[in-house]
């Protein structure tokens, strides 16, 4: 039942790509992979660098930081210090994948399997993407954003717009709603509603800052904070409440936070997303091989690339730069399949509910309903911990030395699993900073609170970020670091408070 191989040489042609795509699609459908339609675009390496520089999006507004990124990428690429990724894939409908023209036929097939069927099905299936992003609208929205910002530059000057964007970028990570689902954004609506929104917000803001005296009785009520509940989305808060911003400035803040929100799921599912895509390119291309559609040479080249992608250098290697998400994700996916197909006694003990179940269904279930943090916590098996030889280092700044707190042994499995999971918890990685209060009746100062986690202080350049926030807010900005027991451990101010300056002078 062996068939003729689709191709034997390294050169690719459009016909061959089409043929491979058809075959891979057929096999993928056999495994029940549900994808958006694919739009495969062949680009040159220069175009790939362009795509890199605008955070992987096919179009984006103009900003110097993208230029910096581009210059750096170009420099590294030309010096041969880094290779470009073989592909970039965009969470949109249709799902756009970029293939570089330099790739061999094998690489193109690998990329098609990886991006067009792996990542694509992840984008369509995973709950975070389903909840937080609207794949059909993103390209239109970016076009709207690009045009809007260009118009602002024409009307108010490039420098003016750049200042706002700089400040927004500094706070980009704090421009996402972590819990509340955002409205799906569509570009057409966006344009229609944008004008109305401008007017409405401006009126709303004016009401908040209304200086016409209120009735005496209201003043006597106990001091109320505004906002009543702390607000995690700082950019949202600024957009809606900053007293001095122009309508177009509010719109730019909104654009930045919408883009930030779009990337929020990607940050939380890197391990799963890459693991899923690697697992499927491996499985799909083996499917082709089993049917005799590809040659042995094809498989050798494929396996060579595959194994270098999922290689994890040990911690003491000069190439070590943290845990490789491809390795971790891919191994976990394969491990789940192993647990389903050939469970050991240990697996039955640890994973009674999935050991021996249908592997494809289990994997799909994992893909749909987890993010990195919960995925690791749920599915990292002792067998894999042993295979990767994971261990935890505890760094307590109050102790003079680092300590090994867990290794891959019977008592360590549970702990390592928790430690690794915590490492992927965005809440642990980024300082928890929220809008705490605005002095509405007084100097309009904005107070942020940093809820200290594990005693980790803020980095030194936080003051720089405060300056950006000060630019947006227009009045004094304070940042208090609060320990779990409620005491304020440290505070920063922008502009610096005079007593601080006097103390510093003394």
């Amino acid at each position, binding site marked *: 039942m062996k068939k003729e191989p689709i191709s034997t040489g390294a050169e690719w042609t459009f016909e061959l790509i089409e043929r491979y795509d058809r075959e891979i699609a057929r096999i993928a459908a056999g495994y029940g992979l549900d994808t958006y339609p694919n739009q495969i675009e062949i680009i040159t390496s220069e175009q790939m660098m362009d795509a890199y520089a605008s955070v992987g999006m096919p179009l984006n507004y103009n900003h110097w930081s993208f230029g*910096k990124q581009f210059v750096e990428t170009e420099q590294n690429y030309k010096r041969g210090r880094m290779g470009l990724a073989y592909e970039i894939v965009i969470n949109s409908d249709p799902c756009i994948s970029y293939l570089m023209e330099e790739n061999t036929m094998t690489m193109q097939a690998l990329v098609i399997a990886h991006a067009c069927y792996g990542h694509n099905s992840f984008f369509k299936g995973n709950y975070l993407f389903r909840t937080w992003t609207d794949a059909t609208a993103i390209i239109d929205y970016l076009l709207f954003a690009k045009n809007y910002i260009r118009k602002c530059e024409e009307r108010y000057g490039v420098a003016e717009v750049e200042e706002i964007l700089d400040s927004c970028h500094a706070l980009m990570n704090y421009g996402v709603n972590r819990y509340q689902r955002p409205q799906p954004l569509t570009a057409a609506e966006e344009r229609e509603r944008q004008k109305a929104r401008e007017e409405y917000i401006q009126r709303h803001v004016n009401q908040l800052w209304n200086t016409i005296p209120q009735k005496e009785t209201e003043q006597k009520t106990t001091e109320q904070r505004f906002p009543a509940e702390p607000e995690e989305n700082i950019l949202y808060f600024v957009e809606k409440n900053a007293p001095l911003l122009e309508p177009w400035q509010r719109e730019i803040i909104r654009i930045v936070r919408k883009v930030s929100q779009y990337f929020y799921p990607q940050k939380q599912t890197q391990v799963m997303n890459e693991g899923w895509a690697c697992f499927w390119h491996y499985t799909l291309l083996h499917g082709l091989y089993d049917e005799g559609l590809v040659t042995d040479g094809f498989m050798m080249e494929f396996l060579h690339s595959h194994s270098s992608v999922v290689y994890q250098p040990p911690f003491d290697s000069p190439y070590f730069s943290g845990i490789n998400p491809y390795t971790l994700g891919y191994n976990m996916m394969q491990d789940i399949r192993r647990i389903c197909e050939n469970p050991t006694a240990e697996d039955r003990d640890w994973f009674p509910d999935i050991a021996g179940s249908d592997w494809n269904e289990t994997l799909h279930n994992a893909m749909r309903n987890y993010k990195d943090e919960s995925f690791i916590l749920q599915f990292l098996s002792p067998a894999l911990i042993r295979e990767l030889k994971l261990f935890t280092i505890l760094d307590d700044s109050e102790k003079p030395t*680092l300590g090994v707190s867990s290794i891959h042994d019977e008592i360590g499995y549970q702990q390592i699993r928790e430690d690794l999971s915590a490492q992927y918890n965005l809440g642990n990685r980024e300082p928890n900073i929220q809008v705490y209060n605005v002095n509405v009746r007084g100097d309009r100062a904005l107070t942020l609170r940093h809820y200290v986690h594990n005693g980790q202080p803020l980095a030194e350049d936080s003051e720089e970020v405060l300056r950006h926030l000060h630019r947006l807010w227009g009045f004094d900005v304070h940042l208090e670091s609060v320990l779990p027991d409620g005491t304020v451990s440290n505070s920063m101010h922008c502009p610096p408070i005079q007593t601080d300056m006097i103390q510093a002078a003394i």
Partner: protein
Amino acid sequence: MSYIIDRRQNSKKKSTVNRQRFLKRYKKHIKEAVEDAVNSRSITNIDQGGSVTIPRRDISEPIFHHGPGGKTKRVFPGNKEFVVGDEFQRPSGGGGGGGAGEGSASNQGEGMDDFTFQISQDEFLDFMFDGLELPYLVKKQLKNTTQFETRRAGFTNAGAPEKIHIVRSLRSAQARRVALTGKERREIRELEQEILTLEARLPDEEAAQQIVCLRERVEELKAHIKRIPWIDDFDIKYNNTIRVPVPSSKAVMFCVMDVSGSMTQSIKDIAKRFFVLLYLFLKRNYKQIEVVFVRHHTHAKEVDEQEFFYSRETGGTIVSSALKLTAEILEDRYPPGDWNIYVAQASDGDNWDGDSNICGDLLDAKILPKVQYFSYVEITTGPHQNLWMEYEKVHAKWEDAFAMHQITDASEIYPVFRKLFEKKTEGAA
């Protein structure tokens, strides 16, 4: 279900705007780097692009993140001999101590090194010549001096013998021969066919006679074909050239340099750099520019660029020799009506005593009336000598067209260069 699109023809330079904005933002840094390069580079590669280094802290984009400290745990792969409870020193440099899994724990080996990148030759020169402009050129630029350029434009039937295009000529001769002999050759073919059929009937008296008859006719036709000339007058094609008017704003730059014995190597180096800057500047600003290099000791000589900068000669100093030569060349080749004339002179200020006033006269009478701008740089650390005194008089008289400046060491070249050629107000001269 899948669409495959070839995007390779799409525009490549999508990032150009962003890149330019980045360069603009760090203009100050880049300019510093460019000026360093101008001062320290050797002449031959001064106009190449260059690498620019910016301290990384200056271009970092701040975000809230955890600083070192507190209690963090981090999972590592590839354990070899560690067991629970092992303790060891913190690695210096703080890499391991930082926030767990924080992106800033540089994954590029380079870590927090400075940010270095390349700028192209064009960008390098842009920064180098930023804000500079040759004075008063605008005035004459607008004047519609047209120059003609000879260009090829197809083929004609008339022309000079040296312009004969052989392939075209033979081709047309052959075409003519084919056209003129078509009827005869067709007839020959028919007759020969007939002869063949008649030959089949041989031996037959009548047929044999007819064959002879036909053969005669064939010979006759062949003779006729032969009479057609192999090549004829009107076969001959000539390359055609036409004169196309090329609008131009022509400028000529005289570089005058002293290479006498009193010029030490370091002074020559400085002078050379001044001219290199000038030369690059001109090459960049004007498409139509001629540069005349005049070097002198006791005698002046017009040389090419290579010789001007790189050959070595020594001797005494008579500046007027160079000025005289310059004036002659001006007279001969560059009528001031057609040319914008610029002269730049570099010297150490040394001159034979009796010569300086001759220089002054020459400038006054023959050179300055014709030139747009004359710049003189004196490269010396010592006191000014008689040439400078003389030139000061000239300067007083020709304030708009004559500029002079002193350079003491290499780092001053660029500022002085800028000063000499800084943008003049539009109304001047």
